[in-house]
């Protein structure tokens, strides 16, 4: 009964949430085979026909088959293989003149591939990094055979130890080699000039000189050697270069390049650095003391998700405004912008299969998905203005459309006291018997108390007697005397008729060795035979465990067993120091034979 009623209420709740939901389910394909990050999702009107397409830089299953996919509605419009894994995708306008179709840029390895009309248009490669001059010099010497491999190795190691500029791959490889391989390696590679190449880690766009929505934009690249580059949209030359204290992971830019812009870079050391137009180095720094998992700017607030399951809001000067705790790990974040209502909010995909939408610290909505969302974006898709596109951990694709009537109100999520407050306390029940006993105690409390006390004293007396007896006859396995602190325990191995009896004797004193101990076995000679019933113990060094082995032959074939007593004695004393009773097992060997 209870189960049925609860399921009823569940379905009722589901229905009501369906009706009040702000989202229309447009498409769900769990087998879409899209594995990507939010940075590689872009919505753009690629053909200039007002029909927005979805561009996906797909890493492929297991990151093995990188592909560029373009989706129109639920179907894949085109798919082309990529030379390397895409790190980021961006769409931007390259020039002023018509037709104003945006170009698509894909950052991958050290290059940016630019497509126009979905056709390859240009490939930009990051400039080579300057090699270490000392290293260059050394290889030049090697080229002219003026230096032998061993010296070369020593010199290179010296450079690696203290130089500012790191070594090239060639030198690092060389340093790993064995002596025999060096010669060949130098001969093979000495003619090549040494090169240092870096890769792009992140990319975003920045308006060039106009704030309009369809203004020409520059590409901003973050590189593995801790630099930020701004590229000219037409000539693809480096317009500006800024350096950071760590490798950038996420970028967030606002403003125009020619006028004034602010740039926030979340880096691998857990810090977020803020730069302005004129600054070559970061102006402000937010120390998160955790790794950022997403960076989104909402109006003037920087929203950062940290890998400690929390969302923080910061001003652009790095002052913390608020913190919200999430119920699960944040996997990805992106901006939700509803221009018609002037709403900007943050979407966060969580590991528990929720997508939460926050305006500042107020929860606006929760979208529940069948699988954890690993990338998401919101915007115009097809001809629908407000579309939410999500891809899941298993490679699924979910498209939802925001209802035109939907209004986000604060408190749309959780509000009021936590649901646990309404739960009944799980109290242990008391039985009738308990109540009866209570009544009996009230009536006959005195008698119960006396009986209890008498029994308690008896128990204590017996325990004390047994203890005294054990002490008197040294029955305990641990000796109590101060002169010979000893510990004994015995192990019997075997099935019979022959057993192995091992006595573990340990001197527990801190420093004094013990000398002159004897071991004696007392047993029924009709049942057991021991090779030696009495022997001397070697000197016992403190702390060590001495296993003393002896064999026991069971003589009886009637399946009876007995106790063997072990006594540890001091030479010249008749009272044992300690003793152990060993319950011998029944011999199974004879029965089997």
């Amino acid at each position, binding site marked *: 009964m209870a189960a049925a009623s609860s399921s009823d209420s569940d379905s009722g709740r589901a229905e009501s949430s369906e009706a009040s939901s702000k989202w229309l389910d447009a498409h769900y394909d769990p087998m879409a085979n899209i594995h990507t990050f939010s940075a590689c999702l872009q919505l753009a009107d690629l053909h200039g026909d007002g029909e927005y397409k979805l561009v996906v830089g797909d890493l492929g299953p297991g990151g093995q088959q990188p592909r560029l996919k373009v989706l129109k509605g639920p179907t894949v419009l085109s798919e082309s293989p990529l030379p390397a894994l895409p790190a980021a995708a961006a769409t931007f306008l390259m020039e002023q003149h018509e037709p104003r179709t945006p170009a698509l840029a894909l950052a991958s*390895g050290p290059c940016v591939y630019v497509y126009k009309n979905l056709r390859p248009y*240009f*490939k930009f490669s990051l400039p080579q990094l300057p090699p270490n001059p000392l290293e260059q010099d050394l290889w030049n010497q090697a080229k002219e055979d003026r230096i032998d491999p061993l010296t070369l190795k020593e010199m290179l190691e010296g450079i690696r130890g203290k130089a500012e500029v790191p070594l090239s791959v060639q030198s690092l490889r060389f340093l*790993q080699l064995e002596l025999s391989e060096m010669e060949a390696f130098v001969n093979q590679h000495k003619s090549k000039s040494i090169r240092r190449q870096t*890769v792009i880690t992140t990319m975003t766009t920045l308006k060039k000189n106009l704030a309009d929505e369809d203004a020409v934009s520059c590409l901003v690249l973050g590189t593995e050697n801790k630099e930020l580059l701004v590229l000219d949209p037409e000539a693809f030359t480096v317009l500006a270069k800024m350096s950071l204290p760590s490798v950038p992971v996420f970028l967030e830019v606002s403003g125009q390049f020619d006028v004034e812009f602010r740039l926030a870079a979340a880096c691998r050391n857990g810090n977020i650095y803020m730069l302005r137009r004129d600054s070559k180095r970061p102006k402000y720094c937010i120390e998160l003391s955790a790794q950022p998992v997403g960076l989104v700017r909402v109006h003037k607030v920087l929203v950062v998700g940290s890998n400690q399951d929390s969302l923080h809001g910061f001003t652009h000067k790095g002052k913390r405004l608020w913190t919200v705790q999430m119920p699960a790990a944040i996997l990805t974040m992106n901006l939700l912008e509803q221009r018609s209502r002037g709403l900007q909010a943050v979407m966060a995909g969580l590991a528990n299969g929720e997508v939460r939408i926050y305006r500042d610290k107020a929860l606006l909505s929760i979208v529940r998905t069948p699988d954890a969302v690993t990338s998401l974006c919101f915007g115009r898709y097809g001809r629908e203005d407000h579309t939410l596109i999500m891809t899941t951990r298993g490679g699924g694709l979910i498209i939802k459309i925001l209802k035109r009537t939907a209004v986000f109100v604060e408190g749309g999520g959780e509000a009021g006291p936590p649901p646990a407050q309404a739960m009944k306390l799980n109290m242990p029940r008391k039985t009738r018997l308990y109540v009866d006993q*209570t009544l009996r105690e009230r009536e006959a409390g005195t008698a119960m108390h006396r009986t209890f006390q008498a029994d308690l004293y008896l128990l204590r007396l017996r325990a004390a007697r047994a203890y005294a007896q054990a002490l008197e006859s040294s029955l305990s396995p641990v000796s109590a005397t101060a002169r010979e602190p000893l510990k004994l325990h015995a192990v019997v191995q075997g099935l019979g008729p022959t057993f192995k009896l091992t006595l573990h004797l340990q001197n527990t004193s801190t420093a004094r060795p013990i000398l002159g101990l004897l071991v004696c076995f007392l047993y029924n000679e009709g049942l057991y035979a021991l090779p030696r019933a009495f022997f001397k113990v070697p000197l016992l060094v403190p702390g060590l465990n001495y296993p003393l082995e002896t064999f026991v032959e069971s003589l009886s074939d009637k399946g009876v067993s007995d106790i063997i007593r072990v006594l540890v004695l001091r030479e010249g004393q008749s009272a044992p120091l300690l003793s152990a009773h060993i319950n011998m097992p029944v011999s199974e060997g004879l029965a089997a034979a």
Partner: protein
Amino acid sequence: MAEQRLAMRTQFPASAESLKPRLKKAPEFPILEKQNWLIHLHYIRKDYEACKDVIKEQLQETQGLCEYAIYVQALIFRLEGNIQESLELFQTCAVLSPQSADNLKQVARSLFLLGKHKAATEVYNEAAKLNQKDWEICHNLGVCYIYLKQLDKAQDQLHNALHLNRHDLTYIMLGKIHLLEGDLDKAIEIYKKAVEFSPENTELLTTLGLLYLQLGIYQKAFEHLGNALTYDPTNYKAILAAGSMMQTHGDFDVALTKYRIVACAVPESPPLWNNIGMCFFGKKKYVAAISCLKRANYLAPFDWKILYNLGLVHLTLQQYASAFHFLSAAISFQPKVGELYMLLAATALSFFVAVALTNLDDTENARRAYAEAVRLDKCNPLVNLNYAVLLYNQGEERGALAQYQEMEKKVNLLKDSSSLEFDPEVSEEHPSSQSHHLFLWSQSPLWKRNQLKHQHK
């Protein structure tokens, strides 16, 4: 066909390198950091399996030269609890780039986690030479010094850390040092600053609230605990502390609703069930009180406060044999600490034992218990009064008279210093202690009963 055509499209014209004919042998070296970004993205998303796959691939390709891959592998090892392996990998990283303070920091962190605090401080000092403006190094050095019991040095380092960059964690550690030194005022000072710096940190708010509670500044305590609960309505510590304050004021129903939240989150907490039990006791639902207290006792069998409360409830129910049983257990577990409230508790315990024994007609032991209570007690006239009654009933009128006079002396003393005022005491981790003392002095029906007895005579 389609596949082919698409493949054709991706041939890029402008690339200078690809057009160059392949120069005979000398193979190109892969870029070491090629997939660092991918490793990092997987790592921060806690997708450790995928991360390990990429790391393996990258290390194979670069023959173990990719420092970042090793670094993240070590971080994952550490998260998985393989601290020794992670330490070794971090040391490899430190060899690959000896100038990086970050690698040294991680080596030190792993040493710290292995409990080698001395070695960790050495490595941190080394790292501090490479990067002097890192709050994390200072902070962690401070924490290491705490474990090494060098509190002065620890304070210095933590203040340095705060100077470089303020973090909640540093404040918490600094506060802990002051608490270790037993300096409540300084600790409160630190936590106050911390709350000013980050007003939404529930842990700071709760700790500050509890400290105020310990000092008996209830208004401020309740304020801070309340704030903590606004930001996090499920904060276990804050609810328990606030609940015990509500109990003090007799708001048992409100306290019980709050406890429900905790019961959901931490169903096996002994202080929680103790407090719930005392709530029911306050509401005169004795059976419920006993079952809750017994659960608390089951969960923490050596906690004398729970045993004490159980004894109290049984005494109220006139189950003297059980009451004696629990109270004597409480006495044997009670820590012998010379603090005032411990003394009060000890007095009360011996007194209750005496009352139980009186009711069980065990006069000899009852007298001994009274004697002990009188010895420990400093200001409570009722102890003497009850002792006097017992002695009188035994026919020892002289002894009874002496106790009666003692009582009168105390009563006069109390009259001079206005009303019955007792030191309200609370231990930090055990917000329950307060509630039961309250019951002890004002609500226990036993006191009244004994008073009546006296009047009858």
